[in-house]
């Protein structure tokens, strides 16, 4: 599905990522763990085309090398991201958020508002489970609860035929039942034949839903395991060890 070879990224003096090799297979959910500043976000932003890797790094999608990956390019290749809460434009309506940056428009860029409203309405009832009459396609998203907002972000990712869904700390600031919903969603991804990268601080959230875990530390891959190799307790032990020493036992 996706393969990164020898990818590094520096911001001035700061080496955010160093010689990272990383891959995701079709239908696989990969958990990406690591402390703040470990380079998780940088890695994600390289995959989504937001950052370009330093020269020497290679990116492959479906076995094909991609030179100059841009955000629109990555989305065309089926990469969708569910960011933390900040992914939505608060004051804008639901339909504008669903079609953010990918508005349905005619030849000259004029919007097909009717179609966007109609499709949003359909997604709201079929996918997001909005039943209340108080919420319409024109409701600004800031009036929604945290879980509902995350639902919007996730639905947005799914709606556009994603192949690889990146979840960047999607459970942050969510209540227990809302978190449950998000995790249920993550388990449904491989069932639909799609891949996912799941980033979270909370390994209790990550461990149950992923197939493989990759640990990043200070810009390097400190190690990786399939779930069959480690129990949750072992994993916690090892992560402590990484945090202290920078190496994985």
């Amino acid at each position, binding site marked *: 599905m996706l393969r990164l070879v020898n990818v590094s990224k520096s911001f001035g003096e700061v080496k955010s990522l160093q010689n990272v090799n990383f891959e995701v297979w079709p239908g696989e959910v990969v958990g990406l763990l690591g402390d703040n500043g470990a380079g998780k976000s940088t890695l994600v932003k390289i995959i989504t085309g*937001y950052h370009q890797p330093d020269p020497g790094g290679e990116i492959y999608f479906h076995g094909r090398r991609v030179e100059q990956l841009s*955000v629109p390019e990555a989305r065309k290749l089926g990469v969708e*991201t569910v960011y933390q809460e*900040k*992914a939505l*434009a*608060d004051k804008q309506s639901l339909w504008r958020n669903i079609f*953010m*940056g990918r508005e349905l428009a005619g030849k000259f860029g*004029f919007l097909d508002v009717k179609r966007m409203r109609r499709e949003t309405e359909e997604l709201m009832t079929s996918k997001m489970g909005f039943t209340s009459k108080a919420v319409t396609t024109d409701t600004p998203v800031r009036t929604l609860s945290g879980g509902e907002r995350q639902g919007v972000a996730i639905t947005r990712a799914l709606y556009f035929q994603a192949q690889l869904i990146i979840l960047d700390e999607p459970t942050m600031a969510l209540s227990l039942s809302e978190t449950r919903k998000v995790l249920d969603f993550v388990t449904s991804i491989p069932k639909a034949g799609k891949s996912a990268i799941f980033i979270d601080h909370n390994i209790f959230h990550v461990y149950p839903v992923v197939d493989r875990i990759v640990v990043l530390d200070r810009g390097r891959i400190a190690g990786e395991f399939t779930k069959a190799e480690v129990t949750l307790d072992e994993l916690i032990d090892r992560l402590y060890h990484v945090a202290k020493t920078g190496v994985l036992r």
Partner: protein
Amino acid sequence: MDTQLDTRRKSDERSAISRFLRGYTLQIGIVFVALLIWTFFAIGSPQTFFSYNIYRAFMSTTPFFAIVALPMTLVVVTGEIDLSFTSIMSFGVLVFATVMTFTGNLWLAMLACLVAGFLAGLLNGYLIVAFGVPSLVVTIGTQFFWRGAVQVLTGGNGASLLATRDTFFYNLLVGRLFGLIPMQMVWTVVIAVLTWVFLNRHRFGAHVYLIGDNMESARLMGVNVAQRKMLVFAWVGIAAALAGLIASLEVTYYWPTLGEGYLLNTLSSVFLGGTSVFGGSGTVFGTFVASFIIGAINAGIVAVGLSGFWTQLIYGLIIVLSVILQTVIGKRFA
């Protein structure tokens, strides 16, 4: 049975009404403010406010800043501001006057004027985007720069535009439609409609809202933030040049000081019209109505019989009151 159906229908109607109120709170608010001020003036000076002349005056002078306030709404929606348009107005007309003098071709002169405005606006956008300097600072700088350039080039001398008088060109821009409606009013309406279409029914406007609301996420979702911002500033530049041209043609004279004194009423129109200082929300309709409120205040105060010294006081009062009113209504229906 019947009564049950009845109540349901009623509650449906009520929710439709409240949804309408919620969706258009600011627009309704600004119309309400306009009516309130009109009533005040009409009671204070019925002979003036029940005659057509005062409205012709409004339609003649309000466009001078409304034409800029409309695209300025987009700049403020993106979370930026442009203070340099006052000088771009003058610079644009200087280019117009120069090309007119050398070629005698008014259309070419106008094209040059608009291109000058476009480039000056684009420069603002470029400086803001490329160097990440706040637009407030950049446009204070370019305001002084263009004003200074104009002063150096003209030596402070104006130029007569009398040669344009009674040409088709003149009548098209500032003539009187059927002898009643100033053409600049017609153009203001055309620009308002165009701006509305681009802000609300075009991908460009969708991106403008997204940038102002959450720039980071707009970028992450593939919006070309830099290009969009530059275009928004360029648009204000064109509008400023056009507004300057219209204001100069109206008096058939080019004053190098042109544009001074338009800063406050233009920005007030945008803010009074309900555009958020924080970006992400604002309407073309609101700015349009607010421009005429601002335009009416000056004339209205004198007509009611107060001295011109009252203008600023009432001006401030109306702005503060209407902003408070908008916030209160906004909270009530949000």
